[in-house]
């Protein structure tokens, strides 16, 4: 690519170092900013330089502007229920559903010694402290259903006090999915862990 401006060239290089952005897309974005009449570039550069100020919540390890994140400080949330997830992205995904009003705890991965991740490399100790301090009554394990994910759930369950209720997110047939397309393992599990049907909680 032959660009007559070194400044534009550098901007294209920066954009294309982002995941999912190639040089052509980068050029299109830079040219857009160049032609923009509403100070978008200034707004963006201000926002980007502020990214450095983002911290991790001391309590749940989610991203936050303050020491403790907005979810953890919210008075409207149920403090007795904590949803345990692998990563920050999972928090965002569950928040999007609008179905959960408890707090979160981000582990920062799942146990896999082969990848150099043992229990001590995850935010497990802080979870155990939280359970004590906060009087947590239920943990919801929202962790991938793989061998390693299962090991992590099993490990956590052994470590936490027995009075804390542990549940895992349901695994089974996708919402709106047709039974004949579900694989046999998923379908088998859905039958084994079927749920009671009531008119109130099953209306679409």
């Amino acid at each position: 690519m032959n660009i007559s401006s070194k400044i534009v060239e550098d901007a294209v290089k920066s954009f294309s170092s982002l995941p999912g952005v190639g040089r052509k897309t980068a050029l299109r974005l830079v040219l857009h900013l160049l032609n923009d009449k509403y100070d978008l570039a200034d707004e963006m550069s201000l926002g980007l330089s502020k990214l450095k100020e983002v911290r991790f919540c001391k309590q749940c390890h989610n991203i936050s502007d303050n020491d403790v994140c907005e979810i953890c400080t919210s008075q409207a949330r149920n403090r007795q229920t904590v949803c345990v997830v692998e990563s920050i992205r999972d928090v965002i995904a569950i928040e999007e559903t609008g179905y959960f009003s408890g707090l979160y705890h981000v582990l920062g991965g799942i146990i896999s010694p082969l990848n150099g991740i043992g229990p001590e490399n995850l935010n497990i100790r802080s979870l155990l402290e939280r359970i004590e301090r906060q009087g947590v009554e239920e943990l919801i394990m929202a962790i991938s259903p793989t061998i390693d994910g299962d090991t992590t759930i099993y490990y956590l369950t052994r470590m936490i006090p027995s009075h804390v209720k542990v549940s895992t997110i349901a695994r089974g047939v996708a919402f709106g999915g047709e039974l004949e397309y579900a694989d046999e393992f998923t379908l088998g599990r859905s039958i084994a862990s079927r749920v009671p049907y009531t008119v109130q909680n099953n209306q679409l």
Partner: protein
Amino acid sequence: MQLNKIHITNFCNLKNLELQFHPSVNAFVGNNGMGKTNILDAINYLCLTRSNFSRTDKFNVLHGENFFRISGDFTRNSKKNHVVIKLPVEGQKSLELNGKDLERMVDHIGKFPVVMIAPKDNVQILESSAERRKLIDKVLSQVNIAYLKDLMAYNKLLEQRNAMLKSGQSSGSVKALLEVYDEKMEPLAKHIFLQRNEFIEELKPIFIRLYSRIAHSGEQAEMEYFSQLSVGNFIEKCRKNLEKDMALKRSSTGIHKDDVHFTINQNAISNFASQGQLKSLVLAFKLAQFVYLKMKTDTTPVILLDDVFDKLDRDRVKHLVQLLFEEQLGQVFITDTDEQRILETFEKINFEFFWFKIKDGTVIQRNGTES
């Protein structure tokens, strides 16, 4: 079950080879290093999606080429099947059954049962318990897909457990994690143990009978299965060995320590067996596996005999061939460097067969006519 036709491209030293097979016996003759064994291994690939010689797939691509492809036409319970296996050097191995891509290789195992007997088996049976377990797993996986899945899950957990031990950490949380692995491995280990135990018990009488037929000398061969799981509680043993495991940095308890011991006239084979005795023992063990597979699946497996007559005296060769005949082997593929020996042996018992003379990866002669 029968393999009617094979087409091999860029596999080991076989550039492009197309062969029609006889429903009973197919013999490949030729000097060492000409590609006889590679033909058998190509058949093994079609049946088990991998090499019998546990080489990495891409090492089987003809030097200088960037893929190999093997296709075969099978008849199984009078239904025709077309299997294609492809491996690009840069890319994933893929398998096609009757024009349809198979998502998981494991779904193919057991559809076209096969037993291969190769000179390397002699070494394997003596060498290590890991190799002996492999010989058992290869058969059990073909009759019981749940066994293979359990074994794969068990091995994954074991790998993680060993990785944790290797890290050398010894805090309370690491110990707790090791116990978690033990508890998750227990049900899998139990299931695998029961399957192996039942298998050896069923195989034993067949093996003893076949050995005495091949050896023909009144020698008595025996086999015995050993597993830590046969007595006591798995979890308790793991707990007891935890400190030891942490010092050794590997897992000392489990079905990955299972073994099979062989004896001839109550002497362990590793100590005294002659080359010929060992060969007879391996043959009996492998043929017993064949009989077992035939019993457990609804079809007769294909049998691949690589250089089996080597190191056997004339009598043993004769008994072996008679035995092959009596056990109704179905379709046999056999290689030999001694052209005369193999042709005479089969002609003597009036066995109809195809033979192929192989040189530098191509057929230079077949059933007496130039090709």
